[in-house]
C-alpha cells in the first residue's frame, strides 16, 4: 500500500461510497451540538418527519448563550432562554444526551468533548461550530459545518464531502520560556495568512508539537480555522492515550486496550507526501499579540504596530489602514505601549485546567491594575471544580480577577459579557474581528500568560522578562 498521511488513513476508513468525480459520502462517528446552530436542524427533521439515525452518536450542551454569573435562577434574556429551552426540548424529543445548563459537566462544547472522552483518535467529528478543529488534537478528523449539515448528519450519520488537500505545518525545536501553543498558532497564522489553509487539512508535526501537552495541542488545533483550514490534527501518542484513559465516555477495559492498538497505528507513514509543507523553528517564536481585526494581523511583543505606508501591496495597505483605524492604534508604536482596560481569560482556545493553573500562578501575589476589569471563565463546570479544589480561584480573586461560571462568554459576547464601544481587551480567545466581543470593542489575541501580565500592568508586556 502506498505511504499514507494521518489524514489519508482517517479519511479512507470513513468512506461509505465515492463517486467517480471524487464526491464522497463520508461516515461521521460523532456529532456535538450546541444551542445556536442546531434549532433549525431539528426543525428540519420535524418538518420532514425524519429521525436521527444514531441519536447515541450525538452529545449536546448549551454554551454560547449561558450567563457566567449565578444561573440557578435561569436566564434574564428571553431570546437566550428560548434558545436553550429549545435545545432541551429537541434533545428530549429525539433522545439525545444533553448536559444541561446546571449540570456540572456543562461547558464549552470543545472543552467537554475531550474532557468526557467523547473525542477519540481516528474518528470523524463534526459540530455546527468552526472551532470543531480543536478535537483534531487527538488525531481525529474534526471540522465545523453549517446547520443544514448538522441536520444531514443527524438524519444520515454521513456528509457529502470532497477530499481536501493536506498541509504539514512542522515546528521543530523548543518553544522559549513562557511561549505557548497559543503563541505558536498565532505565529503560524501570521505566516500562512487567514486564507492560507483554505481547502487544506493541516497536520502539525515536529518536535515542538510533540512536546505539547494535550491542552496545548487543543489550543493549536482550535485555531486552524483562523488560518482558513477546516481541520487541524496532531497524531495520537502516549500522551493522548494517557489523557483518555478513564474518561467517562472513553472505552473501558478490553475495549480500551483494543482501541489503543488501533490508535498506535495512526500516524503519517515515513514516505507519505503532503500537498504542501510549512516549517517554522520554535525558538523564533516570540510571545504574540494581534494588532488588527483578523487573526493573521499579529506580531511579536518585541515588535511595533505596522506602518501602512511601508506596505507596497495596495490591498494589504488598505486592509491595514482600516484595521488600525478600527483598533485606534498609531503606526510604529511599540506593542508594549498598547494600554488595555479589559482582560478575558477563557474560550475554547484557552480555558482548560492547564491554562488556568499557569495564569493563576502568574497572578499569585499580584494585583490587577487600577481601571482594568479582568475576568476568568473556566471552560467547563468540571474545570471550574478542579481549579477550585486546587485553590486557583483564590489566587485569581485575591489578585482582583472575576471568577465566573463556564461558557463561551466574552469570546463572542452572546451572553451579558460584552465589551463597550472603544474598550480594549487582552483576550485569550480566537477571533479579533470587528465587534466580535461587542460592537466597537477592540480585541487583542494573546496567550493566558500574556493576558495576566497585561491585566497587572495595564498594558502589554514581554512575559519573557516580566517580573
Amino acid at each position: 500500500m502506498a505511504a499514507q498521511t494521518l489524514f489519508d488513513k482517517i479519511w479512507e476508513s470513513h468512506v461509505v461510497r465515492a463517486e467517480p468525480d471524487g464526491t464522497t459520502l463520508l461516515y461521521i462517528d460523532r456529532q456535538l451540538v450546541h444551542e445556536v446552530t442546531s434549532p433549525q436542524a431539528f426543525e428540519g427533521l420535524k418538518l420532514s418527519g425524519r429521525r436521527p439515525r444514531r441519536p447515541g452518536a450525538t452529545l449536546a450542551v448549551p454554551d454560547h448563550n449561558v450567563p457566567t454569573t449565578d444561573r440557578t435562577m435561569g436566564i434574564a434574556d428571553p431570546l437566550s432562554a428560548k434558545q436553550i429551552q429549545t435545545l432541551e426540548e429537541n434533545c428530549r424529543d429525539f433522545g439525545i444526551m444533553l448536559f444541561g445548563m446546571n449540570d456540572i459537566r456543562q461547558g464549552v462544547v470543545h472543552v467537554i468533548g475531550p474532557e468526557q472522552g467523547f473525542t477519540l483518535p481516528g474518528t470523524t467529528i463534526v459540530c455546527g461550530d468552526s472551532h470543531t478543529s480543536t478535537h483534531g488534537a487527538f488525531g481525529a478528523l474534526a471540522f465545523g459545518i453549517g446547520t443544514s449539515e448538522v441536520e444531514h448528519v443527524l438524519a444520515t450519520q454521513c456528509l457529502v464531502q470532497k477530499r481536501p488537500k493536506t498541509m504539514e505545518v512542522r515546528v521543530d525545536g523548543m518553544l522559549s520560556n513562557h511561549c505557548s501553543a497559543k503563541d505558536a498558532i498565532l505565529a503560524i497564522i501570521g505566516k500562512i495568512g487567514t486564507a492560507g489553509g483554505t481547502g487544506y487539512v493541516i497536520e502539525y508535526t515536529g518536535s515542538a508539537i510533540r512536546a505539547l501537552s494535550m491542552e496545548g495541542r487543543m489550543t493549536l488545533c482550535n485555531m486552524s480555522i483562523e488560518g482558513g483550514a477546516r481541520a487541524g490534527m496532531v497524531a495520537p501518542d502516549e500522551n493522548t492515550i494517557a489523557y483518555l484513559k478513564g474518561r467517562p465516555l472513553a472505552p473501558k477495559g478490553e475495549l480500551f486496550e483494543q482501541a489503543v492498538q488501533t490508535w498506535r497505528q495512526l500516524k503519517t507513514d515515513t514516505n507519505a507526501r503532503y500537498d504542501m509543507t510549512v516549517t517554522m523553528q520554535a525558538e523564533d517564536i516570540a510571545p504574540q499579540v494581534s494588532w488588527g481585526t483578523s487573526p493573521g494581523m499579529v506580531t511579536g511583543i518585541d515588535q511595533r504596530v505596522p506602518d501602512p505606508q511601508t506596505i507596497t501591496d495596495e490591498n494589504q495597505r488598505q486592509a491595514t489602514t482600516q484595521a488600525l483605524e478600527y483598533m485606534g492604534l498609531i503606526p510604529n508604536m511599540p506593542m508594549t505601549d498598547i494600554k488595555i482596560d479589559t482582560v478575558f481569560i477563557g474560550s475554547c482556545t484557552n480555558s482548560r485546567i492547564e491554562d488556568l493553573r499557569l495564569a493563576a500562578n502568574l497572578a499569585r501575589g499580584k494585583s490587577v491594575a487600577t481601571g482594568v476589569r479582568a475576568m476568568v471563565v473556566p471552560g467547563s463546570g468540571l474545570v471550574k471544580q478542579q481549579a477550585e479544589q486546587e485553590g486557583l480561584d483564590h489566587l485569581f480573586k485575591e489578585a482582583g480577577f472575576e471568577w465566573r461560571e463556564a461558557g463561551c462568554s466574552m469570546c463572542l459576547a452572546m451572553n451579558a459579557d460584552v465589551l463597550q464601544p472603544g474598550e480594549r481587551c487582552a483576550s485569550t480567545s480566537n477571533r479579533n474581528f470587528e465587534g466580535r466581543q461587542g460592537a466597537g470593542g477592540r480585541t487583542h489575541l494573546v496567550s493566558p500568560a500574556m493576558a495576566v501580565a497585561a491585566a497587572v500592568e495595564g498594558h502589554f508586556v514581554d512575559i519573557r522578562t516580566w517580573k
Partner: protein
Amino acid sequence: MQPFTTLTGLVAPLDRANVDTDQIIPKQFLKTIKRTGLREGLFYDWRKQKDGSQDPAFFLNQPRFHGATILLTRDNFGCGSSREHAPWALLDQGFRCVIASSFADIFYNNCFQNGMLPIVLKPDKVLSMMNDVFAMPGYQLTVDLGSQTVTTPDGTRSRFEIDPFRKDCLYRGLDSIGLTLQHEAAIAAYETQRKAEAPWLFTDLCHNQGRA
C-alpha cells in the same frame, strides 16, 4: 430547495477582503430559532454610523443598489464562524449569488445548502467588475449555471468552475438528505463492517445517561 438555473440581476459591491461571518451577521441575531427574517441583521454594524443612524455611504443604504440580487466582493469572503445565518441573511436580503475572488470553505459550502450560488472569478476580473459597478448605475450581470458563465452588460463572458455534483444539486434544487438516504444500504453495510473493526465507536449514549 429553490433551484438555481439563470439569474440576471442588479449587482451590489462590497469592496473589502476577508469579510467574516461576524460582520455578515453579528451574534445578537443568532439567538433566533428560525432561518428566516435575518435581513435586519445583515452587515448590521457596517450599516450604521457611530451615532446609530444609517450610514448613507454603505452600499446597502444606497437606493441605487436596492433590489440587488448579486453581491460582488473580494478575497476570502465568509471567513470565521460556521454560522449558516450568514447565507440565510444574504438570502433574506434578496441575494442569490455571491461573486468573489475566493471564499472561506464553510461559507462556500453553506451557500449550496440554501439554493445560493457562490462564484469564484479571478481577482483582476473581480476588480474590473467592481470598477464598473461603481461607474455604471444599474450595472447588471447575467449568471448562467448551466453553461457556468457570468456575462457583463457589454456581452463579455467569464467561465467559472463548479463541482459537478454541487452544480447538479443546485440546478435541480435537490434535497441533499434525501439523496444520501438513497444510499441507506451502503451506510448500513459500512456500519456493520466498522462495528467489527472498531466496536468502541458503537457504544451509544443515552438521553438520560449519568443523570443524578
